[in-house]
């Protein structure tokens, strides 16, 4: 469970977020929507402790994230996957090696080194199964920079799922693809997260995708939450106004 209590965030005197109160229950699928600079990425950054709130508290399962550090912070983070806008893949590694990086926290340094250099048969099978679910099993041993943009996005999703997280955070993961591909990727991520009962928080620009695939839509503007509810409860006109 993620909870924001009167959270504010400033970068060098500029307020990125202010007065954010939010509760996200386990298994919820939440879409953050709003124009560029609305504070969506900052909100996501606070959820995995990449950023520290200037005001208020962010709580993960009742624990204050700001008070965690070192090993305890890493342990909590191991349960939160992150798909950044630029996907964060290592271009010159193979798909299976990139996916294996999802378990970096649990494997430790030596385990990760083994996965990168001489991955065992069991792990290869496990990753192949996961890649089958995201539809690119045949690319398991291809270098990431030999894949199309859409395939790379699926690798990033597979890496997030391989982590077996309780929460998946995705920061505009489909901003650079055409509408059809964006639809299929959002569908893929929401259905896979749904199957495992994982919490999904994704920021998007596309209102129609938000309405179609998410349980809950949070609208943001100028660092504030200005609407929060089920897609059919939130006015369509309000959403489109956000998208402008």
């Amino acid at each position, binding site marked *: 469970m993620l909870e924001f209590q009167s959270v504010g965030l400033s970068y060098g005197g500029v307020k990125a977020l202010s007065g954010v109160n939010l509760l996200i229950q386990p298994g919820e699928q939440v879409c953050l929507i709003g124009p560029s600079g609305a504070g969506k990425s900052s909100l996501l950054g606070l959820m995995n402790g990449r950023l520290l709130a200037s005001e208020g508290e962010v709580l993960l399962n009742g624990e204050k994230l700001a008070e965690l550090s070192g090993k305890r912070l890493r342990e909590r983070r191991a349960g939160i996957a992150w798909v950044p806008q630029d996907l964060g893949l290592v271009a010159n590694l193979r798909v299976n090696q990139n996916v294996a990086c999802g378990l970096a926290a649990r494997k430790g340094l030596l385990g990760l080194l083994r996965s990168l250099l001489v991955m065992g048969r069991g792990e290869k099978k496990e990753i192949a199964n996961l890649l089958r679910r995201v539809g690119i*099993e045949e690319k398991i041993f291809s270098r990431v920079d030999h894949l199309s943009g859409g395939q790379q996005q699926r690798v990033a999703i597979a890496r997030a799922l391989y982590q077996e997280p309780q929460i998946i955070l995705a920061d505009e993961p489909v901003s650079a693809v055409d509408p059809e591909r964006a639809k299929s990727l959002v569908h893929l991520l929401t259905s896979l997260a749904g199957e495992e009962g994982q919490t999904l928080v994704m920021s998007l620009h596309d209102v129609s995708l938000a309405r179609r695939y998410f349980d809950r839509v949070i609208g943001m503007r100028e660092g504030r939450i200005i609407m929060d509810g089920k897609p059919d409860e939130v006015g369509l006109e309000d959403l489109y106004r956000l998208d402008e």
Partner: protein
Amino acid sequence: MRRRWFFLAAFSLFLLGLWVLGARLGDLIPSESGRKAAAEFLGAALHPAMDFENPEMQDREHSFIEKLGRALWLTLRYALAAMSLALLMGMVGGVLGSRAWWSRSTVFLESLRVGVRLLATALRSVHEVMWALLFLSAIGTSPLAAVCALALPYGGTLAKVFSELLDEGESSAAEVIRVTGGSGFAAFLAGGFTRALPDLATYALYRLECAIRSSAVLGFVGIPTLGYEIKTAYEDGHYREIWTYLYVLLIGVVFFEWWGARVRSLLTRGVAARELGEEGSSLKALWRARGRSWFLRVSLLLLLLTVSGAWLVEDQWGAGVSWEQRMKNLDRFTGEIVPHPVREAGGDWGEFSGWLAAKMADGGAEALWRTFHLGTVAILLAGVVALVGVRFAARSLVSSHPRGVREGGVFWQKSWALALRAGAMLGRAMPEYILAFLLLRIFGPTVWALILALAIHNGGILLRLGAEVIDNTPSRASSVILAQGGTRTSAFLLTLLPFSFNRLVLFLFYRWESCIREATVLGMLGVASLGFLISDAKVAFYYDEMLLWVALGAFLVFLGDISSDLVRAKLRENGSVKRPS
């Protein structure tokens, strides 16, 4: 950058440099005897020796080809052994000197990082020939001295460049690992190091090529590599033998350049996985179809074997001198590098400043000044040659469809380009020191021989880099000029050159630093500059003076290195220019 000021400053520096160095245009015309020697020497190029030129030598047990093979093997062996050590130093120093490695930033850790970077810069500031002189003086002639002399500056260079490559745009993959709970080490390993690995390998291969050239040059200070054979053959007047050694060196360097380029390309672009047809898509079949390169595998195996061979074949790394004797030599050397007034005053370092001032007044300051100008004049000359040559060497300008616009009439364009590229390749492949040695025999004892040697080598490098920049410049304006009836030259001058100017200047500064470094040793060939003083002090066994001049040379290179880094960083900021490889 204000181009007008840049050109004005460069031109003024060039003229000032010529004046300081006393380089008169008339010296470029060889004397009667010089012309005769040059004609004889160049004529021998067409008839390289396949046997000893001295008939008395032909009956000896070992043939000329065996001697040649041994010199080549020693050149390669010392280069490979030194590079394996340098790589180790470079990896450790590069990782410790990079910001990406240290996930936390404290005053202590930052000092440690800066300390490692400074140590790396200091190690590379001393030229390998100078390191060789120091080692030879300290422990005597031995293969180990040659390997250490190469390994230290190359290790420093690799450490400095590796740390920059590791820091260059840390990948968001590292951040993902860190943010999802991975340790700083794991993030560095998977997200930073693996991302930079092709670049690290690329640079190490380029340095291997340089190490082969440097290993050959060490022959001029007594290490039995190709340079040694070239020097002795020249002293005996055996010009045809010299050409055989030169051709073998050129073939070796050009081969390593080709091989390195192939490996670089495979590492950077990777090999595409084979499409599976009816074999199905079982994990086993997919694994068999993965992209792999036999060329890379065989290259890695051969490299491992030759590096192991380079270390294991030698059974006398210490050249048969006992450990005790070596320690005695070292003890004597460390005693004698202390300035003699300090020694005579029973270790009172108060005497040092007076001695230093006297030495600087007695030619040291002038030699330092001349060395700076030697490197600067040479790089400016190389820059002008490359700037003019780039127009005729860039593939995108000499094709029948320059910049995508049909032109035709390419025979002369392509012939010029081919000749220029071949000339640039030969210039690059030939070490400056050997070039200077040969040019001094043609022009006589004039500083022009050193200027030209530096300019030819660096001009070759700048021409290649410049042509690549022009070919990769995506300027539509050049196509417009050509489509409207403009010439290739006008497209180059009006659009491509202004567009890529900052990048070209960046390369000039990158090579300027190398030119200064090289200029510190070229004086050893007998032309007044720091190298000349070093050589003089070595012959007289004045080790304190020798060390002083070496340190001054290192200081000059250090300054050149830092100022070049600053200018390049500024240029990168302005023009988002990447490091040349």
